[in-house]
């Protein structure tokens, strides 16, 4: 190192050594200590058990929508659908909505459902909730829904509430009114009992 008598040259001489070294250190940190990029983790895999999927084919969140011969639209969605050994299909967590041409709509929710092989009858089981736009909120244990013509029929007793009070009935059918094809009726049969509480004056 040459001898210098003044501080300025001495500082510059030292800087000529330190600065390149610092530059070298910064440059090397770019490659040596930076985070390892793991090319494997870049693509998120679905964590569903693939083997189970192969063994038991199923659809998640399937939806079916169709129209009956008399013009009512049916939209059915489920959380999961699975073909039954070659005859029809089963579904879980099912929701169906029927919108009839007269503007009324009825929603059905059921725990499980099965479609017959010829795709014309959908039977909802395991507790069905029915909510109709005319204000009826009913529950029954199972219900069969014809997909080719508008006919939703409960297999057993129905209970629930309507705009005019609480109601129980032996059976319930939602279908076209005989004789007036444009209007749809919710018919409670096999004995119906309604309790209406008049508003206290």
């Amino acid at each position, binding site marked *: 190192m040459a001898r210098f008598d003044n501080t300025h040259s001495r500082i510059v001489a030292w800087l000529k050594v330190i600065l390149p070294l610092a530059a070298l250190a910064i440059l090397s940190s770019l490659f040596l200590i930076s985070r390892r990029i793991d090319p494997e983790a870049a693509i998120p895999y679905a964590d569903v058990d693939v083997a189970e999927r192969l063994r038991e084919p199923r659809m998640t969140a399937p939806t079916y929508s169709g129209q009956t011969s008399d013009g009512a639209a049916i939209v059915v969605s489920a959380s999961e659908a699975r073909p039954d050994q070659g005859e029809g299909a089963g579904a879980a967590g099912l929701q169906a909505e029927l919108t*009839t041409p*007269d*503007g*009324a709509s*009825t929603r059905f929710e059921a725990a499980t459902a099965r479609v017959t092989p010829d795709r014309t009858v959908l039977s909802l089981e395991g507790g069905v909730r029915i909510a*109709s*736009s*005319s*204000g*009826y909120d009913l529950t029954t244990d199972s219900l069969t829904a014809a997909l080719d013509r508008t006919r939703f029929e409960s297999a057993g007793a129905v209970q629930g509430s*309507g*705009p*005019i*009070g609480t*109601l129980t*009935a032996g059976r319930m059918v*939602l279908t076209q*009114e005989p004789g007036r094809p444009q*209007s*749809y*009726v*919710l*018919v*409670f*049969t*096999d*004995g*119906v*009992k*309604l*309790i*209406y*509480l*008049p*508003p*206290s*004056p």
Partner: protein
Amino acid sequence: QGATVAFGGLKQDTSLPVEISADQLSVNQADGSATFAGNVLVGQGEMRLSAGSVRVEYGQDGKSITRLHATGGVTLANRTEAAESRDAVYTIATGEVVMTGDVMLTQGQSALSGQKLVIDLKAGTGVMEGRVQTIFVPGGN
């Protein structure tokens, strides 16, 4: 010319719950009109009204019933009196039952018939109109 009839037995509170039972109830999905059919029995407190079919008429808010239109042979009865007619309209809020179509009213031994009978359940009175005929047994006891 009407005959006012005392309906001691029929006096009752019209805010009691109304229970309607029938063979069948059909509700139109579009306008929500409801019709009970098949030996309909309407019960409220002491009063029983049975009819062939009853159509429900809703209030404005659609949550309350204003009138029950009963047709197809109506019988209104309670402990002591019974009245029969072809049709009847029961307005729940005012407690007024209007029975029309050859009305026959029996009170204990005596009977009264006419074309129209208007019963006020709250006051327990009734007015029979139209060709009123009455048969009563003179108090022999």
